[in-house]
């Protein structure tokens, strides 16, 4: 076995030299480095390097997303059967083992979520490879995470062709035109989501796409509800889900956003592994709570009556905003994107706070679609360099202030030691 692997390694090594300086070299290297960390050595500077590379960093995020993905597959089926049962007038009794973790549920997840994942990775990586070959740079790892995020933030009934078109748009316009991974201004996954939302608004903002088959059955006697909690609240109607349903995620919504519990675990894992910024996560949660409290206060003051169309969402208890919709998912996995987020530690506090704050604000006031996380994060992506600019200016000003008291001694050639004077610049 060991010998066989050695020859495989050697064969790939020979192939690598064969492809060197050829057009397909980036494509080959991408596959090669997927299997083997390269044999590159340091030449100058630090002769030893830490164990982490970009692939490992991205892989850690993917690991934090896997539980969410698996849960999403079961939930896809569960929401479908729950909606069907509700439409038939005999609501499904929830039971983790009997009605949730079942093969039937998983099967629906398999036929609905897996194709989204395959299309997301297939189309996105194809675009990445094409760009790498044309521009002659290595295939970079950014899409490994983006490709995983995309199927988790779209509605389950998103047509695959729409997803494919959006992915092409998002990767090309959101990332490659800026120069690839590390150079983009907007989060590529959210660019894809935003394109989907604005290009196909009638499809995306309806109340049907969130549950499997709700669209197809609409208008037939078998019609089922596909409404999300935020959708119901925006209609000022009551919601029937318990807090634990919302927290553990047995609710309709975008594929992977529902389980706050698993997202929380993923977030803790990312903080523990030091891959994602805890500053952004904490400040975003604070920001969302503050905005939620303000809205609750407005309702308590009686400024907004029950007749107002904002009443449902405004009176929604402030902390519950964190466990419905995509807020938690956005905060943990998308706001913490290091490339598009704030890059300074102080900036991260400000950046995160406004993401939470604006998310809840858009959520309440958006007439078409009661969700604001992706818009809030995209907005703050645009402002992140500005925030950083002012944070860095703070450091620069401190240095300038210090320099006012600089002790500059004239050079010997300019003045003799006897008449040495301390100049204050």
């Amino acid at each position, binding site marked *: 076995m060991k010998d066989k692997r050695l020859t495989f390694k050697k064969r790939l090594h020979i192939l690598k030299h064969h492809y060197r300086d050829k057009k397909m070299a980036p494509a080959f290297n991408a596959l090669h480095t997927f299997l083997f960390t390269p044999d590159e*050595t340091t030449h100058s500077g630090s002769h030893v390097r830490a164990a982490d590379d970009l692939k490992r960093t991205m892989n850690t995020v993917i690991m934090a997303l896997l539980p969410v993905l698996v849960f999403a597959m079961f939930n896809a089926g569960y929401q479908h059967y729950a909606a069907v049962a509700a439409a038939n007038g005999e609501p499904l009794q929830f039971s983790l083992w009997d009605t949730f973790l079942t093969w039937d549920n998983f099967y629906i997840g398999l036929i609905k979520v897996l194709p989204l994942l395959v299309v997301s990775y297939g189309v996105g990586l194809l675009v990445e490879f094409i760009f790498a070959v044309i521009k002659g740079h290595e295939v970079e790892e950014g899409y490994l995470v983006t490709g995983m995020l995309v199927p988790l933030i779209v509605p389950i009934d998103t047509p695959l062709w729409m997803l494919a078109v959006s992915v092409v748009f998002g990767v090309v316009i959101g990332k490659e035109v800026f120069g*690839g991974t590390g150079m983009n201004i907007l989060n590529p996954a959210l660019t894809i989501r935003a394109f989907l939302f604005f290009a196909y608004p009638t499809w995306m903002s309806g109340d049907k796409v969130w549950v499997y088959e709700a669209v197809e059955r609409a208008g037939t006697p078998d019609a089922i509800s596909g409404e999300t909690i935020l959708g119901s609240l925006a209609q000022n109607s009551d919601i029937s889900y318990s807090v634990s349903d919302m927290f553990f995620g047995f609710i309709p919504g975008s594929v992977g956003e529902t389980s706050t519990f698993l997202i929380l675990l993923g977030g803790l894992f990312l903080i523990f592994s030091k891959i994602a910024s805890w500053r952004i996560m904490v400040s975003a949660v604070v920001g969302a709570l503050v905005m939620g409290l303000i809205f609750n206060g407005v309702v308590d003051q009686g400024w907004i009556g029950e007749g107002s169309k904002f009443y449902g969402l405004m009176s929604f208890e402030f902390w519950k905003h964190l466990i419905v919709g995509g807020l938690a998912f956005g905060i943990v996995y998308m706001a913490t994107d290091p490339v598009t987020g704030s890059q300074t530690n102080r900036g991260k506090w400000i950046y995160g706070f406004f993401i939470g704050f604006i998310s809840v604000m858009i959520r309440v006031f958006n007439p078409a679609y009661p969700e604001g996380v992706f818009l809030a994060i995209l907005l703050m992506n645009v402002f992140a360099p500005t925030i950083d600019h002012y944070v860095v200016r703070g450091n620069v000003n401190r240095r300038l202030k210090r320099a006012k008291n*600089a002790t500059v001694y004239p050079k010997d050639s300019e003045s003799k030691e006897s008449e040495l004077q301390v100049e204050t610049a």
Partner: protein
Amino acid sequence: MSKDIRIKKGLNINLVGAAEQTTSTAVLSNVYAIHLNDFHGLTPKMLIKEGAEVKAGEPLFYNKNKEEMKFVSPVSGELVEINRGARRRILNLKILADKEQAQLTHQPLNVEKASKEDIKAYLLEGGCWPFIKQRPYDIIANPDANPKAIFISGYTTAPLAAQADYVLQGKESELQAAIHALAKLTPGKVHVSVGEASNSPLAGLSGIELHKVSGPHPAGLVGTQINKIDPINKGETVWTVAPQDLIIIGEFLLTGKFNPERLVALAGSSVKTPKYYKTKIGAEISTFLYASGVNEDNFRVINGDVLTGLKSRPDGHLGFYNNTVSVIPEGDDYEFFGWNKPVFDKISATRALTFSWLQPNKKYDLTTNTNGEHRAFVVTGMYEKVFPMDIYPLQLLKACMVNDIDEMEQLGLYEVAPEDFSLTEFVCVSKQPHQKIIREGLDLLYKEIG
């Protein structure tokens, strides 16, 4: 009176093969070499021709921009080779040592009575000036300048580096002589730092401002200490001297002889018995490398410590400033699924299935593998964890990459040397060459502003 400096941000890189604190005398080298790339930015002018005989301490060449600044031969012998590179730039000089050493002796200098000019002239003529370096720009100090302070770090935190406390043992009189002379060169203070729990002879010297430093690497780097003690402002100059070079300066002041002898730590996991050797600047590394023995065939010899040294070979020569020679295995091999499997045998600043955080005191056997490919900057907030200065490292690196001189100045490029970025380079996920970027930034700034 001592002041304490505690560094919290940083990372200790514990490697296998630290030099044991015993000293052997290395066999005499036949050929000694002076590498010109040890003196960054220097334009040398030869004083003697190939084939000429020199005494130990006799000038070989001088600085074209500062003719008084002489560079002397470490041994007596025949200048056998002047190797030149592109545009006839001198790469190195080789001297075939005589069996009987002849020494050029100057009149010892009475530091107490000597004026500042006397001391400068004496050190410049005797070849000791190049041991004094300046910031900004991390080059040999300009003797015309009046530095606001002189900094000497006697605290060693770099991985596998020669321990200052050990190499300075018993050299109190030389150190004191050098400090007395240096103190006359600056209107400011001479800041000397030692480890918190050290028995360094530096601590007992007079005429210094003593600082006790503790914390992980890069607490021992002089740049970190300058930033904490008295940061450099625009327009200011500070000088730095490595403690082992104080011995050579001190001995020269006391005896008039340039004695290039120093204790060198031979360290690294590829060395069978890592320990200290007494040898001279420019000596061939093989004269002590094979006395300790090597564990494998495929190893890298580094002139200096593993974070800042220069790549060398067994037949290379000890650098002008180095008192560490590190030998570690080459890592030119592939690793199957090296990017996703758990890592137990490498150091990491994260916990992304890397487990070095479990055993902070475990010693690791690292190779020269980059552990990944070069990428654009992606991850943020990581450099700040190992970079204790009040500077934004990522932003400064980016300013250097785009040659934005205003931004480089404002973000504090004056305060740093490439070595200050050795640790950020170590942890860099994108495998960017930080030290090279900073060096090029400093060169540009020097060229444009001077």
